[in-house]
Every structure is written in C-alpha cells, then in structure tokens.
C-alpha cells in the first residue's frame, strides 16, 4: 500500500508533443490553399449575400444602399409567390432526383453485368451528363413542341386516335404537363452521375457475399435487398444529397424551356430569386430568397448527414 503510495507517478505526456504539433501544422499547411480558395469563391460571397439580404440594394439606386433590417424577409413572407415556388422547388428537385436514382440504379446494375461492349456502353451512358444544360434544354424544347417528335410518335402509336392526347399537345405550355416534362429533361441530363456513382459502389461489394447468399438459396431480389442496397446505402445517400442540392439550385433547363411559366407552374425558388435580382434589379430581395434556399439546403444536409452516420454505424 505504502509502496504504491510512495511510488513515483509516471510523467504525464503533454497533450501536444512537438512531433504531433509539427504533423498537425503540416496538415493545416497543406489544407490552407484549398481553404483560401474556398473562402474566396464560396464563403465570402455567401457572407456578402447574407449581408445584402438586410439591405435595400437595388440596381436602379446606385449609392443608396442602406440597412433595412428584416424588411426584405417581411416582403418575402407577404409575397404570394413564396409558398408556390417553395412547393414547386421540392416537386422539381425530389421528382428529378427520385427518377435519376431509379434510372441510375437500373443502368448501373446492367452495366455491372458481364455484357458485350460493356466499356462502350459505360462511355455511352455518360453522354447526357456531358451535354451542356442549354443544349439539352433546346433539344427537349424541340422534342416537346406542339409539332415535335414526341407528338408525332404518340400519334403514330395511335394515342391520338384513341383520344388520349391532343395531336398538337403543347407539353411545355400546359401547366399540367410543363413540370413533368422539365423533370423528364432533367432526369435524362442527370442520371449518368447516379449511374457512375452507383456502379463504383456496386464494384466495391465483395463477390463472396453473393456466393454465400446463393449457397443459402437467396433469390436475386433477396440478394439485392439484403446485400446490394445496404452495402450501397452510404453512396446512395451522398449521391441523392448532392443531386437534391444541385437540382434545387439549378435554373438552366427551366429558364430556357419555360422561364418559370406557364402561369408560374414551373417557377422554383432559384428561378424566382434570379428574376428578382436580374429582371427587377432587386438584389437585396433576391439575396433574401437566396438565404432562404441556403437555410433549406443546410437543414437537408444535416438530416442527410445524420442518416448517413446511422447507416455507416
């Protein structure tokens, strides 16, 4: 007992020894250029946008930019378009991402099989992803015009004769079909990203799992449900998170195909912000809408990341 009492306590190692500190410093030094770039191109404009949302910054009143507190947010809360654009943004983003994920998964599963010209098809599937957004929009605009290829095909299939569709149905000019048409265009444009991500995840699943499942008599569907999906869950979560954020903020397809119309039926928050800022010159108001989008995306990211952690555990 006394021996224990009298024994010299071992010297406590300092929290940060020199070597650790040096290693940390090196790590931070390597990170520094990236952090500076990120700050300049992302954080500073974001901070500036937040500050501008509290100002009455109008392009028509040079030099009269002043602090107006929460006025822009008050105007926004009273704007009848806010609720409509809010729900339509979700319709556009979730509709597109859901279809992209389904199509991406189906094509990834196909391209993971031992098929002829697999390399060629893997390259081919990337084409929509590399086509510029403006070009894709123009292409879909021509396909879905009243005398476009889609109507011609539908007529040839006999749908017009059955009375299911109008011979010259204006897909983008009818509020019932305008958003679904844009979602279709966006799905075509964005699904290759999902394919590539899912294919990479599929290839990392050990073959042994499937062999063991086969020996145990599991069906293809059971293997997919109990092996493929759980193994791919982190990738699915991250890919859908990125897809949601990108789609929520994108305006190129909507701007070119419908400009938010007809009668606001394809107006999203991002398009609404663009119109306020660059159409009406109300940069302060547009920034307030931008801050709302930022807050929404931050919430979504937190929820996704929480889900991601749970899946990883």
């Amino acid at each position, binding site marked *: 007992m006394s021996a224990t009492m009298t024994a010299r306590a071992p010297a406590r190692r300092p929290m940060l020894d020199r070597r650790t500190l040096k290693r940390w410093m090196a790590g931070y030094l390597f990170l520094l250029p990236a952090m500076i770039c990120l700050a300049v191109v992302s954080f500073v404009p974001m901070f500036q946008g937040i500050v501008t949302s509290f100002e009455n910054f109008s392009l028509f009143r040079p030099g009269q930019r002043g602090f107006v507190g929460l006025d822009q947010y008050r105007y926004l809360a009273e704007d009848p378009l806010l609720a409509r654009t809010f729900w339509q943004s979700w319709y556009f983003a979730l509709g597109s991402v859901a279809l992209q994920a389904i199509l991406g998964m189906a094509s990834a599963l196909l391209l993971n099989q031992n098929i002829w010209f697999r390399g060629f098809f893997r390259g081919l599937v990337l084409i929509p992803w590399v086509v510029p957004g403006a070009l894709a929009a123009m292409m879909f605009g021509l396909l879905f015009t009243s005398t476009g290829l889609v109507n011609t095909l539908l007529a040839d299939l006999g749908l017009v004769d059955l009375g299911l569709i109008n011979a010259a149905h204006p897909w*983008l000019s009818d509020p019932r079909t305008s958003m679904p048409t844009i979602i279709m265009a966006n799905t075509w444009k964005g699904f290759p990203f999902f394919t590539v991500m899912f294919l990479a995840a599929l290839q990392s699943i050990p073959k042994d799992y499937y062999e063991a499942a086969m020996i145990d008599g599991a069906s293809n569907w059971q293997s997919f449900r109990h092996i493929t999906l759980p193994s791919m869950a982190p990738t699915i979560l991250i890919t859908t998170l990125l897809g949601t954020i990108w789609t929520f903020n994108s305006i190129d397809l909507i701007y070119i195909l419908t400009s938010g119309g007809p009668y606001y039926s394809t107006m999203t928050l991002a398009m609404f912000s663009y119109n306020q800022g660059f159409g009406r010159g109300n940069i302060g108001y547009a920034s307030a809408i931008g801050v709302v989008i930022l807050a929404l995306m931050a919430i979504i990211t937190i929820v996704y990341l929480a889900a991601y952690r749970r899946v990883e555990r």
Partner: protein
Amino acid sequence: MTGFSRREVVKGLGLATGAALLPGLGSLSARAAETVKLVNVEHDTRPLDNAAYKAVYDAFRTKHPGIEIEFQLIPWEQARPKLLTMAQGDGLPDMGRVAWVADLAAANAIVPLDGKIEPSLLDTVDPLLVQQAYGVGNDGARHLYALPWFVGTQSILVNKTLLDKAGITLKDSWTTDEFAAAAKALTVPGKQWGVTLDGAGIGDPVQIFLSAIYGYGGKWVAGAPQSVTPEPIVFDSPETAAGIEWYTNLYLDGSAVPSAPTDTYKERDANFQSGKAAMAWQGPWSLLETRENFKQGGWELASMPLPTGPGGSVPPSLGGGMAGLFRGVLKDGHEAEALEWIKFLSSEEGQRLYCKTNGMIPASRTLQADPFWADDPLYKGYIGTMKNMRQMLPIWATGLEGLLDDVVPPLMQGVFLRQLTPADAAKEIQAQVIRGLQQNGVRVPS
C-alpha cells in the same frame, strides 16, 4: 588582327538591333498616342447586323482615322441585367445601343447628351421617336440620352402566299375584328395556325401584348408619359381588360400556335418562317433573312399595319435603335470621340449604310421616303404603323421595363390558360407594378 570574343559579338548585335528598332518604336508609340480606342456595345447578334456595323464603321474610319472601335456583343436576353450590373461595378463600355433609356438613366449608366449635340441632328427624326430617347436622371430632371438611328416599330408580318390561298387581300388598314377573322380563316387545325404569338421571354411579349391593349385604349397614366412627376397608375381599366380579352382570345379560339404561352421570340420567328403560322406580330428584325428563307420555301413575304381597336384606337409604334454614351467613356476621357461615333451612326449617312445592309428602317423620315423602303411591300405595314407613333411608358417609372418583363408574361399566360380573367390580370399587373416601383424607390400616388 585582334579577334572579337563571343560576348563582344552578341553585345554588338544587340546594340545594332536596338539602334535599328528605336526609331520604329518611337513612331509606333506616337501612332498609339494619336489613336483613341473605344468600346461599343450592341445586343443584336444577327449576322447582317455585324455587316451593317462594318459598313458604317468603314465609312467612319475614313473620316476619323484616329478613332478605333472595338465592337462587343451582349446577347439580347442578358444585355439589360449585364449593363445594370456593369454600372454597379464601374465596368461600363464607352458607348453603344441604349435600349432601356429610363432604366439605364435611373441607374446612372448613361450620359446625358443635352447641350452636347446640335439640335439639327434630330430634325428629320419623328419627334415622338425622339421622346423615347428622354429619361429621368439621378438628379430627377429629364434629359436626352440617345440619338435614334433606326426604328423598331411593330407590324403584322404575313405569309402572302398563304393569305392569297385563303382569299385574304392585303390592306392599308384593318380592325382587330378583321385581324381575328383572318387568323381564324388561316388556321388548319393541327397543321397551320393563323398567327404566332410569344408569351414568354423578355421585351417582345410585353411590347406586343401592351400594344394590343393600347389599341383598345388602355394606358399606364392619365397624363403625359414625359412628365417627371409620378402620377397614379390607371392600367386597371375596362379598356385594358378588353384589350387583354381580344389578344388572348386569338389563342383561346385556336387561331394561335398552341405553344404560345411558353414561346419566346425565337420560337415565334421559327413558327412563322417554317410556315407553321401565316402571320406574326413582330418588329422589323431579320426582314431580309426572313424574305430569303421565304423565297426558298416558295412563299412571298409582306407586312400589314397593326390592327385598329374599337372606336378607332390605334396601337402605337414602340421602340427603336438609339445610340448613347455609357458612363465608361467619362473614365477614359474620350467623350468627344465617342460622341463623334454616335453622331455619325445616327446621321443620314450612317442610317443609310446601316439600314440598307441589314434591312432595318431608318429613323430619318427623309430616308424612309427612299424607294428602298417606301416602294417595298415588305416595309409597307411598318411605315403605316409608324404614323401612330407615341410613347406609352411614363419616364418617371424607374425600372418599369424590367418589371413588366417579369410581371406581364406569367399573368398573360394565366389568361391564355383560363386561370385568370382579363380583368383580374389587369388588376394583378397594376398591383405588382406599383409594388415593384415602390421597391425601386418610386412613390406612386394612389
């Protein structure tokens, strides 16, 4: 004999080269000092517009060899917001086309020309077209900001071959009822439509929609649009609602191309040039190219004036090409040289060269009488409509043009789709315009 070292040879060669180049460099720098370089900005990007500018510039250079101009293009859809943001960033060009006088004047992006030009320069231009070159500056006063050089008036462009087939003859004037009847007669369901309208995009859809409304007696203010004092907005009137009803009925009764609600001017032009529509309500853009396309399709192109509304109300002719100075010129200190360019461009010589090359209509009434324009049936409708030139947008309403581009198309689409009544659309347009003007710092009296 003493030999030269390699170092000495290189040194000698260097000195000799320097001595040979110095006088040349001197003359180069002298020439650079004499040459003034300016930047001109334009937002029409059709091939013939470039050729038109080149024709004017070549003639200008023979008279002003010391002025070099770099021509920059900003696409039409982006020009207005880009110029406004350039004004914020102090990055404006020296001069160019000024299409949104009221907005650019309020944003302090353009330079007033009062006292800087000889008034005789505007003598041959229709005074009502000159009025459109006025705006209210930051000082709250009315100033002349630009010099007109071509007219951007609207008319009804027609596929004469299709009209002949339907037994419709060209007239010097017609009513809105006659126009609607012609559009209906020219429609072959599912294949061909009487008229193509653009319900989306900026500029054209609003101008065309409004001129139909003005043709029914609708207006923005009861007083003169040139007043610098804000007046109550009176857009929400039975005349406006009647104009909206007539215009949107063209679509609702099936006489207009079904994609009208989301068609921009590009689709409208394509609909007309492909024979999908027999008539188009549009400005004098690309007339020569359109005629060439028509020839290839075996069709004949002509124009008719805008139809007259009930009670003889005539839709006004709007817009035009106006050249002005941007704030950037003050930074460079070459205001005098830039002024020379816009004066030459808007002179009769400049107008003739520009408009004969790309088929636009000159602003000068003397030139309009030239057989090139006066005797060509292609211009008949435009020149006929020009008799009714008047300004409709009040110049005190800061940012009104941009506001209308944002407010009007969706509400027009609402009526096209029967989700709004014409009267409700008029009311909503007025409410949104007043709210927008207030956000722009304009106090609109009630």
